[in-house]
């Protein structure tokens, strides 16, 4: 079953075609990595998926429904979660409240359920002991983990992670890979990632964007051996 697909999805900024006519299909349950050189249009592309950026042309459908015109907050409630590339937690609020905000629209006035699910999400990323701290007092790596906890706690069907390992230490990256592997099966994951080791260890399939278009799509080993991908990353000389 296809959870998410796009047809002819495009976005222009002035004369620049940031994303150009992308057809993309993501089967439910898959961990898909989205890679490509800087400026390839990855963040713009997922911005259109989540509704942060309106599409210039084309359609996005999620779970069989056309969501192209749906505002971002309704897409989130329909089952998408989005974690920001630049850490964007509520730094002056406690860690627990950050997560509670992410799930309170589901739990409503059920305080016990809110508390329990907040604790579960924090536990899953390993920062449960910091629940009472202000999010801004966390180390950078822990803030990234908090971002992921906020995404997880929504119990999304599609989790979009925009460069989650950026700026993490090697040991933290090892933990992150284990976390993603643990999540696979529970939810569909779309991962924008620069760290090719992380991609190779976590992704079921890879889509490569270059100059706003899909350059290649396939399993990790197919992508590794794809001449066009190698050229895009290493230059054609």
């Amino acid at each position: 079953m296809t959870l998410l697909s796009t047809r002819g999805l495009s976005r222009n900024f002035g004369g620049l075609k940031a994303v150009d006519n992308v057809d993309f299909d993501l089967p439910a349950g898959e961990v898909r990595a989205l890679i490509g050189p800087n400026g390839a249009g990855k963040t713009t592309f997922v911005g259109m998926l989540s509704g942060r950026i309106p599409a210039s042309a084309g359609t996005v459908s999620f779970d069989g429904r056309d969501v192209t015109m749906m505002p971002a907050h309704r897409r989130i409630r329909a089952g998408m979660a989005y974690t920001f590339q630049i850490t964007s937690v509520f730094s002056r609020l406690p860690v627990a409240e950050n997560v509670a905000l992410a799930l309170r629209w589901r739990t409503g006035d059920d305080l016990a359920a809110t508390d329990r699910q907040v604790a579960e999400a924090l536990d899953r990323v390993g920062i449960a002991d910091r629940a009472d701290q202000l999010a801004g007092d966390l180390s950078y790596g822990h803030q990234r983990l908090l971002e992921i906890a906020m995404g997880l706690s929504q119990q999304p069907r599609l989790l979009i992670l925009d460069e989650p390992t950026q700026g993490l230490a090697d040991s933290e990256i090892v933990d992150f890979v284990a976390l993603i592997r643990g999540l696979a099966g529970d939810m569909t994951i779309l991962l924008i990632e620069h760290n090719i080791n992380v991609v190779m260890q976590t992704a079921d399939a890879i889509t490569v964007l270059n100059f706003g278009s899909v350059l290649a799509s396939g399993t990790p080993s197919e992508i590794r051996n794809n001449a066009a991908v190698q050229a895009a990353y290493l230059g054609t000389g």
Partner: protein
Amino acid sequence: MSMFLGSNLRKSWTLHIGVIILLFALQFILPAYHHGNLARIMVLACYAMGYNILFGYTGLLSLGHALFFAAGMYGMSLTVQHLGWSAGPALLAGLAAGFAVALAIGLLALRTAGVAFMIVTLMFAQAGYLAALYFGEYTRGDEGFVIQQSFRQLAGVNLADPTNRYFAALALFAICVVVSLRVVQAGFGRVLVAIRENEERTRMLGYDIHRHKLAAVVLSGTMSAAAGAAYGLLFGYAGATFASVQYSIFPLLWVLLGGAGTILGPFVGTLFMFYLIDLSSELTTAYMLIAGFALVMLTLFAPQGLVGELRRRALRWLP
């Protein structure tokens, strides 16, 4: 996760109900002069609390709240003066006027953000002020009009009597405190704070930002209108001065001094400012110089306001 445990909730209810009881008791102790002042301060603090919902909790800086205060005041006083309504229905008319104006202004002004929002609200309030002058036949403009004592009766209680007036002001104050507390503790209020802290992140957690902001403007405007209507009724006067720009600036100052985003900050700020001007004007005719100096010092050394500073230093649980 003490954040969610009942103890903070209990502490904050105890504190706020304690303050209301203290104010109740003060009525029997205070000399007449301060007694009258405090009644006035409590009503104005309701105005500041209304302002605080939008500014302190949602992070939207309005420079036009006098429009809502005046909508309540005129909604009440014009129906009394020209339609002969009694105080009860007139108060409701004031609330309804505030609600309607806030909804309309919210729908228009929320199309903007930041500095543009400040300017748009300022302009609407100026238009309201000029309208009050333009319709001078009914409003008597700057000069205003007195609401006759015979009309200032609510359920058989004479509101012109100082004791009754004090209790009426306290009742309104208590309602505003309880409403504010409930809002802040509810999921709705938490989302307002989240919008203040990081609007884009809040949207991407699944919240309709526009709907929440609009609800905040309407709640804030209606509470301000309630204060305006009560002020006119309790003190027996309505005039265009209350629609002027200085009455848009006052609640901002009160809230900043007392502590934006705290429940008691607006009251503390109003009290402080009222007596700062009152006491300094006894000393010198240049009392605004003293008041201004004190304000600058406070802004420098307690930038989060009096209650905000207290929360930062000692009582982190303060709502």
